[in-house]
């Protein structure tokens, strides 16, 4: 039943070819999965694995890059107008990767292939995670799908709260930030120096609230059905190194590229010791950049992160020595310093991610230090003073709640409070989202991937 709903959801996007692609990938990987398991011979198994993975990737690449080759190709599929750039491959990158992880897990004998086609199809198409992930492993999601559904009041309730919380983050905070960021990044040549820096920091916040807001909505919705999806974020900007950043940002994606690209490569090149690891890192993150899109901006972004990590691999032993000699190890100051450096490195990379073109990105990079243009206030006031105050108050509220959750057991005490208090809080959240949301064109940022 959920399957029908999921397919219904996907089809609401009014792009029937997407349904076809999903079905195609589902059938392919289902079939290949069974084939891998059916064989005992190592070579045959490997062949089926490679075949299956290649097929899935081919479908994905075709879907993503076909429009680039020529808009006429769409008329082959009987479409008389090209869907928007964003919609074109929505969700495909996510479930394709999920399918590949399924195949590899069968090959490695970590998982058994799913015989029930319906359940397997749902594993890929489950609507809360269909559009933007998280990328679920077979072990995590398939086993949950096997349980029959029973109404669970607490899960239903906390799922709804989580959903509303994510919605709030997205429509009130992320969208507001996007207006300010767009004012600068859609017209970079009118700005210089400090407003470029400001816009980049704002973008770092925007993309976090956008994506984690969506993830909350996805996890919340799934929880309403008693399904626990994997958490995708864990205070990413609190990371003290780029490596740690990737353990906290888009967790399911980085785990995927770690397990299925980095580890095999690293092992293959283990003779080259540190160089092997460094190269594996660069290649892995190059792939990550390409997965996000076929533009030089994304490639540069991926490459940048790959280089950051590669350098840190070489630098680590030296870094340990320096910290020991200066007696900074495990001090509070070191942690703050590392967090600040990491955050700025990440923001620098975001420039390439967000800029509308590679030349725009280069402009931003070359003009970061050029002092004060008097555009900071106008940028902040892009949508007016009221909008800015709503933003600031929302951020304050969010910070207070997050701090409270971390430092106290507010989650339990909240549910113990009287009815009117709790429902009053829900009411406040929903009404705020309703009233203070901002109408913007952009869909979720990570929809495009």
């Amino acid at each position: 039943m959920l399957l029908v709903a999921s397919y219904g959801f996907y089809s609401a996007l009014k792009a029937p070819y997407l349904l076809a692609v999903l079905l195609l990938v589902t059938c392919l990987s289902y079939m290949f999965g069974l084939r891998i398991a059916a064989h005992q011979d190592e070579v045959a198994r490997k062949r089926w694995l490679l075949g299956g993975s290649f097929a899935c990737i081919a479908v994905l690449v075709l879907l993503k890059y076909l429009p680039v080759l020529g808009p006429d190709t769409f008329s082959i599929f009987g479409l008389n107008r090209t869907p928007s750039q964003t919609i074109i491959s929505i969700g495909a990158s996510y479930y394709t990767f999920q399918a590949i992880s399924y195949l590899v897990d069968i090959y490695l004998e970590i998982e058994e292939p799913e015989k029930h086609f319906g359940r397997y199809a749902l594993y890929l198409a489950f609507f809360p995670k269909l559009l933007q992930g998280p990328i679920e492993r077979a072990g995590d999601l398939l086993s949950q799908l096997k349980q029959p559904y029973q109404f669970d009041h607490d899960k239903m309730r906390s799922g709804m709260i989580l959903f509303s919380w994510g919605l709030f983050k997205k429509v009130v905070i992320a969208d507001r930030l996007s207006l300010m960021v767009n004012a600068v990044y859609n017209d970079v040549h009118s700005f210089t120096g400090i407003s470029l820096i400001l816009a980049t920091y704002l973008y770092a916040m925007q993309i976090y609230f956008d994506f984690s807001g969506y993830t909350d909505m996805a996890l919340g919705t799934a929880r309403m059905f008693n399904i626990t999806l994997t958490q995708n974020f864990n205070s990413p900007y609190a990371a003290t190194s780029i490596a740690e950043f990737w353990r906290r940002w888009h967790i399911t994606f980085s785990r995927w590229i770690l397990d299925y690209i980095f580890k095999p490569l690293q092992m293959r090149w283990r003779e080259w010791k540190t160089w092997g690891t460094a190269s594996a890192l660069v290649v892995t993150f190059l792939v990550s950049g390409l997965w996000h899109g076929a533009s030089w901006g994304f490639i540069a972004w991926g490459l940048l992160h790959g280089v950051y990590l590669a350098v840190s691999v070489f630098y680590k032993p030296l870094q340990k020595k320096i910290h020991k000699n200066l007696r900074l190890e495990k001090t509070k100051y070191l942690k703050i310093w590392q967090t600040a450096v990491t955050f700025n490195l990440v923001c620098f990379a975001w420039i390439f991610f967000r800029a509308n073109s590679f030349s725009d990105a280069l402009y931003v990079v070359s003009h970061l230090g050029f002092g004060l243009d008097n555009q900071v206030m106008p940028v902040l006031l892009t949508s007016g003073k009221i909008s800015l105050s709503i933003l600031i108050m929302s951020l304050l509220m969010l910070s207070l709640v997050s701090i409270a959750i971390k430092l106290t057991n507010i989650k339990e005490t909240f549910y113990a409070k009287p009815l009117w208090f709790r429902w009053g809080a829900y009411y406040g959240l929903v009404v705020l989202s309703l009233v203070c949301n901002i109408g913007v064109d952009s869909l979720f940022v990570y929809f495009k991937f």
Partner: protein
Amino acid sequence: MTTIETLNQVFCLVFDDDTLKIHPDMTANDVDGWDSLSHVNLITTIEAKFDIRFTQKELLKQRKVRDLISDIDRKMVP
């Protein structure tokens, strides 16, 4: 020496800790400093010491020390 004793020696060498004592159920979480980089060092040192070579598949499946031991033993059989 048994496999596990030799292996223990390798661990002590790679992690620079003579007091380290491994057991079959140990995983990377249990040893300080066992990350992906030191894991590569561990593997190459094991391969050199036992004069063997792991396959890609074996490497990706290894999760606990016991997996290492069984893979080594399997390869040592003449």
